[in-house]
């Protein structure tokens, strides 16, 4: 246990082996469900593949590739204490095969029930908002519960719950999007053409992708993580928090699917985008805030573990500060690149990774770092440190945040560019120019330039995609 808030993180006990899950009844139940889900998924895709082989294959490839940036982002959240790849695969597989196939059947039945018990009209208008969130969030959250039942000791913090939730949601989102793409091909009635697939990819992948299942499940997963980790609180309190997190996921999903603002603010692109932003930004902002908070708490725990070794050759104070956040780690690498070129940046990357692994090893009941795992990473750290000293860049810390007029302009224009597309283009250009220049003159970049580039680039992308969809009669 560490000083501060000792129960924020519960490290995996040393000697925990993946094979220990085999002794848990839940492992076999989950395996069985994954097998059944896989069978149904294959059966569900057999007919589309036979009828529309090109369109279905393109849909499978496009949406599989679509998962890559999401997985990268989730991976970056999980930097300090990596989740086992097999468990992440299980979570993604649950979302894609168990939750998606069960939801398809459950949603249909629930919609019929609603039509019978209330009315078809009510079902048309409110069905997606009531049924979708209830059935789908439940099934996806059960994926995180499944991970907790198989490998409870691998859920070490609320952030781990977020990660498993996000991956479950991503698996669900990918399969659901493929199903929608195939339906679009069938509805179009023009045979095996990829046009409807591309349109669906733009609509559901870009316009709806950022604030969708991945996000909602991340929130619900945080609740499961809290329940598992915070055993210092009573069960009713933990259940209440988990319930609230689920309710939050349900509510955001309800808002997204609801008929409110269905007519938007007019038929133009601005109207469509405004509705998207109104419905999507609040949950995105809230969940990102939650993720940031969970990540900071986890980072503080592991950084404290490393700091307790009290050896600046292992990690200096500046390096510990940089290790805690993604953008500071990146800034430290960029700074090393600025001073020592690509070799410097690579050494810092290896050093940071080794420091993170050492922090986890030390936190697992090895506070002095004498165990085999800790020694292994200590050796890597020492080797990288020697390389850095040799390069006259002994400390892999991030430079002080640098603010430049260009950075301020890029960020400001990026914010305006959300509603004015030309301004977004300027913001992206300004950000890109500033970053390239910093790299060329080997100076640390103002991270507001990056923010401006991302905001501007994203806004340009959203506007372009919306315009393309409208131009092809897709929305």
């Amino acid at each position, binding site marked *: 246990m560490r000083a501060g808030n000792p129960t924020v993180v519960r490290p995996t006990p040393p000697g925990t082996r993946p094979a*220990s899950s085999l*002794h*848990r*009844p*839940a492992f*076999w*139940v*989950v395996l*069985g*469900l994954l097998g059944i889900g896989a069978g149904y998924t294959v059966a569900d895709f057999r007919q589309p593949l036979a*009828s529309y082989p090109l369109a279905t294959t393109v849909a499978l490839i496009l949406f599989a590739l679509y998962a890559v940036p999401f997985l990268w982002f989730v991976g970056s959240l999980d930097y300090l204490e990596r989740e086992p790849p097999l468990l992440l695969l299980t979570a993604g597989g649950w979302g894609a095969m*168990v939750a998606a*196939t*069960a*939801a398809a*059947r*459950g949603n*249909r*039945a*629930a919609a*019929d*029930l609603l*039509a*019978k*018990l209330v*009315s*078809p*009209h009510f*079902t*048309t*208008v409110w069905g997606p908002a009531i049924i979708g969130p209830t*059935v789908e969030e*439940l*099934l996806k959250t*059960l994926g995180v*519960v*499944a991970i907790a*039942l198989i490998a409870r000791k691998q859920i070490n913090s609320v952030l781990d719950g977020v990660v498993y939730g996000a991956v479950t949601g991503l698996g669900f989102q990918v399969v659901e999007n493929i199903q929608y793409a195939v339906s*679009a091909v069938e*509805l*179009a*009635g023009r045979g095996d053409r990829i046009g*409807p697939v591309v*349109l669906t990819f733009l609509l559901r992948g870009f316009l709806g992708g950022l604030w969708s299942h991945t996000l909602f499940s991340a929130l619900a997963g945080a609740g499961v993580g809290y329940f598992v980790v915070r055993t210092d609180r009573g069960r009713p309190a933990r259940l209440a928090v988990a319930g609230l997190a689920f309710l939050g996921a349900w509510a955001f999903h309800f808002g997204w699917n609801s008929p409110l603002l269905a007519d938007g603010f007019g038929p133009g692109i601005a109207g469509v985008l405004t509705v998207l932003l109104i419905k999507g930004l609040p949950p995105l902002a809230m969940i990102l805030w939650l993720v940031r908070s969970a990540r900071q708490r986890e980072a503080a725990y592991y950084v404290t573990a490393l700091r307790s070794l009290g050896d600046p050759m292992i990690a200096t104070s500046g390096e510990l500060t940089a290790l805690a956040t993604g953008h500071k780690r990146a800034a430290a690498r960029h700074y090393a690149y600025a001073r020592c070129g690509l070799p410097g940046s690579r050494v810092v990357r290896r050093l940071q990774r080794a420091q993170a692994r050492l922090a986890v090893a030390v936190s697992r009941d090895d506070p002095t770092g004498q165990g085999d795992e800790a020694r292994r990473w200590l050796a890597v750290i020492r080797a990288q440190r020697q390389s850095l000293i040799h390069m006259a860049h002994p400390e892999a810390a991030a430079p002080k945040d640098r603010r430049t007029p260009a950075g301020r302009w890029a960020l400001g224009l990026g914010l305006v560019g959300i509603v004015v597309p030309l301004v977004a283009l300027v913001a992206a250009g300004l950000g890109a120019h500033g970053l390239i220049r910093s790299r060329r003159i080997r100076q640390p970049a103002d991270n507001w330039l990056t923010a401006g580039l991302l905001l501007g680039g994203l806004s340009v992308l959203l506007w372009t995609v919306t315009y393309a969809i409208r131009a092809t*009669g*897709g*929305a």
Partner: protein
Amino acid sequence: MGGPVSRWANLAGALGLFGAVAAVAVGLPALNRQIPAVRAVADGRYEVGAGISVLPPAGAAVDVTGTRPGPTQGSVLFLLGSVRYVVVASGPTLPGGPKSLVEAERRVRQKIAKIRGYQVTGGTTPISTRQGVTGRQGSYTSPGRCGWYAVFYSPAGVAEVTVSGTDQALRGAMAPIQASVAGLRFKALAD
């Protein structure tokens, strides 16, 4: 890993997990099958969707599971005994909609032919509603049943009609159904 108590708890959790998934995937459909779907139809025109309405034949009931009215598209499933009478309406602004009567008919024929055991038979002939909307009609067969389809295309939207039943049932029901189809009304054209 935990002793017998935690293993029992794990088993209980696993069974709960399985039960929850089964409740959604199997339980909800089973419950759905227990509740009848057929309802009486109120007198007067029935709004199918997208501003298209129809006057149901006398004695028709509506199957609410095949009925989904909406502002840009909708469908209704009427039942006259064992005869199924479906109207699917879509508005002109619906993305990916047909651009002509020929395309609309082709899509309907494709939809019918895609169902296993269903076959579109013979050619097609023109048909029109009392409102003057032109369309095409044809017939099809399915295992143990016959079918008739009609599709209407106008700037106000598209209406697809499919009727299926046993040969004997259809003989008694076709006249009132065709009268109902002739009474399809496209609101945007009437305004």
